[in-house]
């Protein structure tokens, strides 16, 4: 029990609780009055303010960088395109709006609804693109009906324009809307649904340079979506441009040279590895991929036997056929099975190994044949003999010196490595020992041997410069919007063959004879004023006992030609593959000739030289063989 003191003070204090209660009540009343003022008297003003009080971020897409050829000619750039967007949070009746839009603009309602559904769950008040690439008429219609379409917006975006249409389509690649998978993966944090991303070719490989960075505007808009003011703005940064090593004029002429034929061609600077032309025929229209692909065109792409969507120069793996005799010949020289032109083989038209008979394309035989003649006339028996003497592993060793059998690192997706068989490879791959008779097809570039057109170009380029392997280069420079160089790529020596120059000289003499001497298989490549050296090749697609007229397209042989020019001072190397073109000399060599002519023209621009029309085809039929126990298969993929 505590002592009770200060009785008077306590009484006074207790008295004051009444006063304090009164004060408290008054203060609370004041608060209520204030609330009354805000919530009842000014309620409408504040409600309007809250409805107008909507900040929105409107992204401004960065203009994608251009792609130019080596001379600065623009191959890919942008043009404005409009798309229909909607801000879901501002739409009261989604179904009614979709009905309205589909009837006003004549768009597929289901498609609009699907795109709407797909983009839900992103940031609030972020416009969803419902239809891209709408016409100017459709834009007008939307503008006219703007007030009846709350939440609907038109976005202007730069769209990709491929100046040459289908020219260089495989190399340039295409862009299309970023996929959901991409969006969810790393490295795509800056992308939003509806953004475009490079899906193939240079567009894909140089996405990070080309894309630029998007800007945006922080806007205050009212409930109807009308912009009240811009609060802040960040400008988009235009993507960098890519300057290719390609010469668009050569590229165009090369593609034209193919006509309707399917195939690939690569033209390369012998002394730097810069690729001047990179052809895969037929091409496709890259612009269709960034818009709405018409189904019939898509179907035609898929059904075309010539496979227009495939980048044959990069991913096509072909048996090199007789062009591979260059490697076999060098393997013979390296392993002292051939001593310059004095070593001869007597070609009787066929070559027996055990029970198998390997035929020369010339059934009558070439008679006494030395290295030069064997190249010139593409004698198969000479190479059966040399190949057999050297052995498959030594052929492969020489091929490896040219860095064949591995991809060259050109910098595009899906580059294939080709195949150079060895005994070890066969053991690993099939669990079987190498059979001696399998070496003969390899010696003439058939059998298991596979090369891509880039590898063919690299091979002939290395012969031309006598031993240096350059990494094939597609991009010269990255430049910014002002044309200032940001990154410059320099030629890269990947390695050297280590084969002496005199051996290359012997080969080159033979290759010169192929084009320029009577009896040479590559005379069709000749162009007036320049000395060309080259090698034809015909590679079997399937083995046929009797090659007759009217072989179905898909079973016809591939025609190949590799060449360099000028002979005395090599500068350009060309590899041409014409799928099912049947004869290297007749189908592929003229294309190579035209490419070289185009290169010559580009050297002296003002003069207009007429296209050479060298149709003096010389028959060539190499690699036709019959045998019992050896399977020779040519593949075309």
């Amino acid at each position, binding site marked *: 029990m505590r002592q009770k003191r200060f009785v008077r003070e306590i009484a006074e*204090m207790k008295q004051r609780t009444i006063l304090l209660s009164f004060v408290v009540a008054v203060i609370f009343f004041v608060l209520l009055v204030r609330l009354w003022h805000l919530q009842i008297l000014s309620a409408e003003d504040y409600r309007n303010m809250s409805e107008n009080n909507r900040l929105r971020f409107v992204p401004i897409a960065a203009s994608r960088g251009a792609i130019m050829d080596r001379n600065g000619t623009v191959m890919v750039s942008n043009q404005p395109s409009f798309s229909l967007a909607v801000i879901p949070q501002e739409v009261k009746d989604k179904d009614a709006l979709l009905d309205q839009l589909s009837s006003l603009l004549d768009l597929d309602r289901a498609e609009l609804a699907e795109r709407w559904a797909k983009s839900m769950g992103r940031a609030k008040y972020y416009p969803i693109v419902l239809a891209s690439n709408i016409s100017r008429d459709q834009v007008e219609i939307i503008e006219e009906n703007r007030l009846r379409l709350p939440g609907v917006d038109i976005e202007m975006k730069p769209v990709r324009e491929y100046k040459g249409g289908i020219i260089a389509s495989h190399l340039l690649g295409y862009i299309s809307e970023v996929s959901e998978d991409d969006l969810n993966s790393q490295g795509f944090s800056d992308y939003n649904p509806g953004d475009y991303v490079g899906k193939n070719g240079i567009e894909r490989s140089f996405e990070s340079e080309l894309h630029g960075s998007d800007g945006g505007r922080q806007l205050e808009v009212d409930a109807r979506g009308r912009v009240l003011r811009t609060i802040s703005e960040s400008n988009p940064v235009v993507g960098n441009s890519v300057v290719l090593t390609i010469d668009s004029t050569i590229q165009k002429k090369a593609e034209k040279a193919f006509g309707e034929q399917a195939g690939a061609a690569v033209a390369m600077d012998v002394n730097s590895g810069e690729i001047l032309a990179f052809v895969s025929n037929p091409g496709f229209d890259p612009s269709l991929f960034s818009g709405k692909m018409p189904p019939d065109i898509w179907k035609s792409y898929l059904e075309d036997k010539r496979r227009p969507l495939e980048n044959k120069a990069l991913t096509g793996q072909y048996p090199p056929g007789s062009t591979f005799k260059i490697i076999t010949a060098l393997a013979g020289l390296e392993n002292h099975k051939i001593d310059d032109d004095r070593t001869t083989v007597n070609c009787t038209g066929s070559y027996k190994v055990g029970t198998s008979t390997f035929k020369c394309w010339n059934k009558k035989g070439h008679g006494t044949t030395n290295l030069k003649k064997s190249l010139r006339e593409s004698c198969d028996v000479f190479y059966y003999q040399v190949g057999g003497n050297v052995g498959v592993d030594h052929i492969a060793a020489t091929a490896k010196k040219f860095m064949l059998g591995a991809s060259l690192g050109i910098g595009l997706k899906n580059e294939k490595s080709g195949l150079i068989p060895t005994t070890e490879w066969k053991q690993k791959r099939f669990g079987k020992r190498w059979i001696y008779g399998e070496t003969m097809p390899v010696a003439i570039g058939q059998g298991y041997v596979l090369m891509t057109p880039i590898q063919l170009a690299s091979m002939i380029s290395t012969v031309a410069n006598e031993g240096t392997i350059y990494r094939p280069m597609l991009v010269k420079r990255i430049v910014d919007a002002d044309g200032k160089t940001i990154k410059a790529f320099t030629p890269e020596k990947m390695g050297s063959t280590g084969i002496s120059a005199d051996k290359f000289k012997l080969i080159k003499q033979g290759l010169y004879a192929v084009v320029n001497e009577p009896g040479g298989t590559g005379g069709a490549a000749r162009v007036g004023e320049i000395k060309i050296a080259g090698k034809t090749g015909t590679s079997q697609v399937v083995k046929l006992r009797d090659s007759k007229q009217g072989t179905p397209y898909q079973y016809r042989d591939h025609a190949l030609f590799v060449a360099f020019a000028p002979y005395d001072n090599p500068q350009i190397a060309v590899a041409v593959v014409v799928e099912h073109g049947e004869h290297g000399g007749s189908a592929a060599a003229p294309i190579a000739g035209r490419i070289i002519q185009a290169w010559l023209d580009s050297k002296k621009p003002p003069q207009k030289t007429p296209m050479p029309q060298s149709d003096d085809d010389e028959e060539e039929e190499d690699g036709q063989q019959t045998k019992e126990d050896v399977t020779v298969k040519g593949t075309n993929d």
Partner: protein
Amino acid sequence: MIDRRLLTNIDWMLACLVLAICLLGILNIYSATTSYKIIGSPFYIKQIYWMTFGIGIALVLCTIDYHLLEDFSFWMYGFILVLLVAVLIFGRRSMGATRWLNLGLFNVQPSELMKLVIIITFARFFNNYHSAGGMSVKDVLPPLGILAVPVILIMKQPDLGTATLVALIAISMMFYVGLRWSTVVSFVLVTIPMFWVGWTYFLHPYQKNRVLDFINPERSRLGSGYHIIQSKIAVGSGGLAGKGFIKGTQTQLRFLPEQHTDFAFSVFAEEWGFVGCLVLIVIYLSLVLWGLNIARRCNDRFGSLLAMGVTAMLFWHIVINMGMVIGMFPVVGVPMPFFSYGGTSMITSMVGIGILQNISMRRFMF
């Protein structure tokens, strides 16, 4: 053990009012944080934890006779002063101010504890103070000294809101004890130049900005004035009946700053309108009046002072927070007791309720 008679004297009115506010608060926090991306437990769940913990502490406090506080009051005061000094030296910096002290297991905010300790200290001090007829100027100097030390230390952190609250609680208690008119007049005369000194030497630029923004919110629409404007829009747009639960655009589009803590009331006002606010204010008013009633019913001076102090603490929190949200006071970080999200506020307020309950339960025991 606890006296059986105490249980029969439990103050249900007090308990129910507090519980009602807590539940409304949890509901409101749920709505205020639906637009948040939350990792771990949602805020409203955490608030339930804090509430339960707070009620537990309050119950424990009820079992201890509040008269024991009298014996320890000056020790507690000294201890908190030491902590306040320690905070300035070792404190953890957060959001530009040093308020927290890491005690290994948990962080404490000594300035928050000072709100309670100043109540106990003043109750102890005035319990034996001759004040009949009201205190003279000379009489108020010693208690003002006791008050000034912690207030200056808290302002140094800087935490203007808490410093103001501690001062307001103490001054309210001095009014309760009794002041002569001459004392009040001289107090006002001295305070005005002190404000000037404080403005010039003690206030940080951000605090000055807040005061200036309060006077003229248009001064910086997107700066600190933005908070006041957005809060007023939220409250005003609520209208009579409100926009509905989880339907407040200001809240859900996150125009409101700290909408689950200091601005929780503006979320409530937007979604429940004037009607909701009226209900909440009536509950709060009842709580404060009931607190004063407890002070009045208490038969000993210490208990009555204590009850009055706790009530003053709750009252000033409510008034300052509400005044801030509806644009009557500058933005100071003062939470709404039991209503705003936050463990510290919940525990401090619940301790206060524990003390009130303690006093109320023992009103017949002499």
